């Protein structure tokens, strides 16, 4: 049996199980009401896409910067990186959002909740990225750096030509996982009233007095975002393999 066929069969079996569970809930389904509000779903989905893309880019940059700090020999610089990573990884995103928006952003007069939401989400994800990058950098044998130096490459050339290409290959699976998490974590931005996908779906539920109908489009909407990310990651891993 080919791998793709197996994937499809298992997915179908899983979907059947879920459908079975849904059918046993005694509940009056009202799909037309949900269809009426499809614009709200789409708007929310687009907002989630925008949030995720922005946070994706920002968190990669922040994570890379933090990883560099963590490797630094300057005590203060390393401390900044370490405190940032431990603090952010050790507290829930919910808490960071509430404090970030209602306390910190408020204090500095930053009013745009979309910007604050993206910032908080990026800082959150960036801390995990930093550890992923740091692990990737640490996994590169010291001889690689020695060889690069021995050839006479400048530190910047070493980084660009030798270290980063290897680090990228090493961290790709973990980074892809982190990006998928980011897309899903973006749903929490609803607590500061950002009109993203999950909140919009919940509003449709509330407005149509339905409960469960919105969940299926909701799950499907997220899968549309996360499955391509995973597929892209697997494809890149294949391209970057050391055996050509």
């Amino acid at each position, binding site marked *: 049996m080919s791998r793709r066929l197996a994937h499809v069969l298992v997915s179908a079996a899983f979907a059947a199980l879920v459908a079975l569970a849904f059918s046993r809930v005694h509940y009056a389904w009202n799909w037309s009401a949900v269809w009426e509000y499809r614009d709200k779903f789409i708007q929310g989905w687009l907002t989630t896409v925008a949030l995720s893309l922005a946070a994706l880019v920002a968190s990669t940059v922040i994570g890379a910067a933090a990883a560099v700090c963590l490797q630094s020999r300057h005590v203060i610089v390393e401390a900044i990186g370490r405190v940032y990573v431990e603090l952010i990884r050790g507290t829930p995103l919910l808490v960071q959002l509430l404090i970030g928006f209602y306390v910190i952003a408020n204090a500095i007069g930053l009013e745009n909740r979309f910007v604050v939401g993206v910032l908080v989400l990026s800082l959150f994800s960036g801390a995990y990225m930093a550890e992923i990058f740091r692990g990737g950098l640490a996994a590169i044998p010291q001889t690689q750096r020695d060889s690069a130096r021995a*050839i006479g490459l400048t530190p910047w050339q070493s980084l660009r030509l030798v270290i980063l290409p290897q680090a990228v290959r090493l961290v790709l699976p973990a980074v892809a996982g982190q990006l998928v998490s980011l897309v899903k974590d973006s749903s929490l931005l609803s607590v500061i009233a950002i009109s993203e996908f999950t909140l919009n779906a919940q509003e449709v539920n509330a407005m149509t007095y339905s409960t469960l109908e919105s969940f299926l489009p909701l799950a499907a909407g997220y899968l549309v975002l996360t499955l391509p990310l995973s597929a892209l990651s697997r494809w890149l891993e294949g391209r970057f393999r050391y055996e050509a």
Partner: protein
Amino acid sequence: MKLEITGLTQRFGATTVLDQLVLATGDIQALVLVGPSGGGKSTLLRILAGLDVPVAGSVAFDGTILPRNEEALRLYRRSVGTVFQAYNLFPHLSALDNLLLPLVHVHGLSRQAAIDRVREPLERFHLSPHAHKRPAELSGGQKQRIAILRALVVQPRRIFLDEPTSALDPEMTAEVLEMIGELKALGTQFVLVTHEMGFARRAADDVAFIGEGRVLAHGTAGFMFDHCPEPRVRGFFDRIVA
């Protein structure tokens, strides 16, 4: 090359690895460093290759003292070549790209000029069929030979080899040693750290025995292997050489 080392001291943390090491050679082609593990051979080689800076002392090749600041050392490193025990090659590049990298990015050759330059050495050492493979597809011996080539194609003044065969099985060890022997025949200057005593004896002009952070004995290959009075050296050879 004429090598002159005075008062060379190196420390890592609280450990002193090289202790006022002194060495002076005549104008030789091949210097081999031997001695027990942890005695300081590799540390010395790294300093000679311009990778590390000693805490004290000086090194001079043909009268030119090695600089101590990183910028100048980098320029020095561009003029020499270094081969380590393993993980020399960059795994994300093909063997050919590994060879081209220093030529293009450090020595400013165009890619085509670089390809032209490496063609003949690849042929000479029978490595052309492997040029487009990635290191993961090469045997240990092939990887080391490509690494040596990479050090050579930049036309260095001399090359440094730190136990290039220690991670290889006997067959691959032989093919790498054969290549180094060819280099000797071609006139390439090198400093080699090795445990391969048979090869050292054949290929070396001078042999220096490094132990306890110092040169315990130094002389021609013949002298060192057959007539060396230093008991620690005799004892070492007796144990190692069959």
